[in-house]
C-alpha cells in the first residue's frame, strides 16, 4: 500500500491497464490502418504492385507532385525566414495581428482553400474572363494546384521559426554587426547556422504537407489523368474506379514518405537537443575557465 502511494509510481495493475488501453486505441486508429495499406497493396502480388507503381499515370502524378512541392516549399521557406526575422527582431505596431494573419490558413478548411482560387481564377470567377481572353488556364491546370498547395502549407516554416528565433535572441547578430559584418554576412554566418535545425524542421513539415495535400488540390485540379493528378488525387481516382490494389500500391508510396518524414522529425529533434546541450556545456566550460582565471588572478595578487 505504502509503495503504491509513492508519488510518480502507479500500481502495476494501473500501469498495465493504461498501457494496454493506449496500445488498443493506437492499434484501432493507427497501426492497423498502416498495416492495411501494405497488405492491400500486395494483395495481387509483387508484380502487380510494381506495375501499379510504375504505370505512366502514376509516374505523371509523381512528377506533378514533385514539381508542385519544388515551387511551394522554397517560396514558403523564404517567406518563413523573412516573417520570423521581422517578427522576432523588431518591435512594431500590429505585430500580434500579423502573427494571427500568418496562422490563418491553418484555420481554413482545405476545401475552402481550394474554393477561393476557383472564385478568383475560375471560368466564372472574378478574373476569369480576363484570363480567358489571354488564354491563361489556372484552375483545372498546374498553376491552380501550385497556388492551392502554397496556401495550405503557407504558415509551416514561419510557425516553427518564430518561437525558435525568439528563444535565441539577437545578441550574437548584434555582436557581429558591431564587429563590422554587413547585414547579409551576419545573416549567412550567424543567423542561418543558428536557426538551421528549426528551419529544417519547418521545411520537413512543409514538404510533407505539400506532397500529401488532398482537399484543396482536389477542388482546383479537375482530376485530368496524367495531367492534373497529384499522387493523392491519383490514389482517389484509382480507388473510385475500384482498382483497390493499385490504389493502395500508390498510397504505400505516400505512407513510406510520411514514415521518412517522422524519422527525420525525430532525428532533427534529437540533433537540436544535442546542439542545445553542447551549447550549454560550452557556456559552463567558459564560466569554469573564467572562474579559474579569476582565482589565478587572486592568487597572483596575493603573492605579489
Amino acid at each position, binding site marked *: 500500500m505504502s509503495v503504491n502511494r509513492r508519488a510518480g509510481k502507479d500500481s502495476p495493475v494501473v500501469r498495465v491497464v493504461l498501457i494496454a488501453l*493506449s496500445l488498443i486505441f493506437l492499434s484501432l486508429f493507427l497501426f492497423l490502418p498502416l498495416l492495411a*495499406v501494405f497488405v492491400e497493396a500486395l494483395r495481387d502480388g509483387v508484380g502487380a504492385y510494381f506495375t501499379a507503381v510504375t504505370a505512366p499515370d502514376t509516374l505523371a502524378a509523381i512528377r506533378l507532385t514533385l514539381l508542385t512541392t519544388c515551387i511551394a516549399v522554397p517560396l514558403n521557406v523564404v517567406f518563413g525566414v523573412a516573417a520570423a526575422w521581422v517578427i522576432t527582431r523588431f518591435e512594431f505596431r500590429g505585430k500580434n495581428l500579423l502573427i494571427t494573419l500568418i496562422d490563418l490558413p491553418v484555420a481554413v*478548411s482545405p476545401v475552402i482553400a481550394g474554393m477561393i*482560387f476557383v472564385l478568383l481564377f475560375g471560368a466564372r470567377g472574378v478574373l476569369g474572363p480576363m484570363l480567358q481572353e489571354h488564354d491563361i488556364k489556372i484552375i483545372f491546370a498546374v498553376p491552380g494546384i501550385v497556388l492551392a498547395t502554397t*496556401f495550405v502549407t*503557407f504558415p509551416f516554416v514561419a510557425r516553427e521559426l518564430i518561437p525558435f528565433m525568439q528563444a535565441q535572441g539577437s545578441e550574437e547578430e*548584434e555582436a557581429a554587426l558591431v564587429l563590422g559584418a554587413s547585414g547579409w554576412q551576419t545573416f549567412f554566418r550567424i543567423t542561418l547556422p543558428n536557426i538551421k535545425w528549426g528551419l529544417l524542421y519547418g521545411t520537413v513539415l512543409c514538404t510533407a504537407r505539400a506532397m500529401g495535400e488532398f482537399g484543396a488540390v482536389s477542388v482546383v485540379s479537375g482530376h485530368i489523368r496524367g495531367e492534373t493528378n497529384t499522387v493523392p488525387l491519383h490514389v482517389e481516382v484509382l480507388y473510385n474506379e475500384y482498382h483497390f490494389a493499385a490504389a493502395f500500391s500508390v*498510397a504505400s508510396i*505516400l505512407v513510406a514518405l510520411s514514415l521518412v518524414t517522422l524519422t527525420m522529425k525525430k532525428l532533427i529533434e534529437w540533433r537540436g537537443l544535442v546542439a542545445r546541450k553542447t551549447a550549454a556545456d560550452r557556456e559552463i566550460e567558459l564560466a569554469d575557465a573564467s572562474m579559474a582565471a579569476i582565482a589565478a588572478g587572486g592568487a597572483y595578487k596575493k603573492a605579489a
Partner: protein
Amino acid sequence: MLPGFSLSMGITVAYLSLIVLIPLATIFLESSTIGWSRFWSTVLSPQAVAAYQLSFGASFAAALINAVFGVILAWVLSRYRFPGRGLVDALVDLPFALPTAVAGIALTGIYASRGWLGRYLVQIGIQAAFSRLGVIIALVFVGLPFVVRTVQPVLEDIDLDQEEAAATLGATRFQTFTRVTLPALWPAVITGFTLAFARALGEYGSVVFISGNMPMKTEIVPLLIMSKLEAYDYAGATAIAVVMLTSSFALLLLVNRLQAWSGKRVSR
C-alpha cells in the same frame, strides 16, 4: 538596431497579401453579391443544417474521444518506460504526416463490412463505415496527436514534489491525480481538445471515403461545399463557406485566448 526591417517586412506583407489575404477576401466579395434572402435560404436549408449538425456533432465526439485517450497516452508516454515506447511516441505524429486520402482509404478498408474489423462489428449489429460512426472514426484519426502533444510537455514539466507532498499527507494515488495533477493539466487538455475540434471541422480527405456521402445523413459541411462547387453553384458554396470560416476563426481566437490563459496559469 538590426538591418533588414523594410526588406523582410516587405516580403512578408506582399507574400501574405498575394497568397492569403486577397484570395480569402474574394469569399466576402462573392458573398456580398448573393443578397440576404438568398444567403439565408442557402445557409438555413435543411441539407445545410443537417451537414452542420453532423460536422459539429462528429467533430465534438471525436475531439472528446481524443481528449480522454490523449491524456492516457500522454501519461503513459511521459511516466512509464516500456519496450517500444520510442516507436509509439514517434508514431503518434503519423496523422500529421500521412496524407488524409491515404488515411481515408486505409480506415475504410478496415472498417467496411468486409474489412478486418468491420466484418466482426457487422455481426454485432454495428455498421462502422458508410455511417455517422465512420465519420467519427476518420475524425478521431486526424485529431489524434493534438491532445497528446499539448498535454505531454506539461506532464513532463510538472514537479513531482507536489504529488509526493500529497502522497505524504495521506492522499491516495487517485486523489493525488484528480486534486493535484489534473488541475495543472486542464488548460493543456482544453487547448488540445479545441485544436482537434477545429481540425476535424475542416477535414475532408479522410472522411469522403469512409462516410458514403449521403445527403442529409453522412454529408459533412466541406463535402456540401464541394458538391455545390462541382455543380457550379459558386454562390451557394460561398454562403456555406462563410458560415464555416466564421466558426473556424472563432475557434482560432478561442485557442489563442486559451493559450494566453494557460501561459498565465503556468507562470503563476
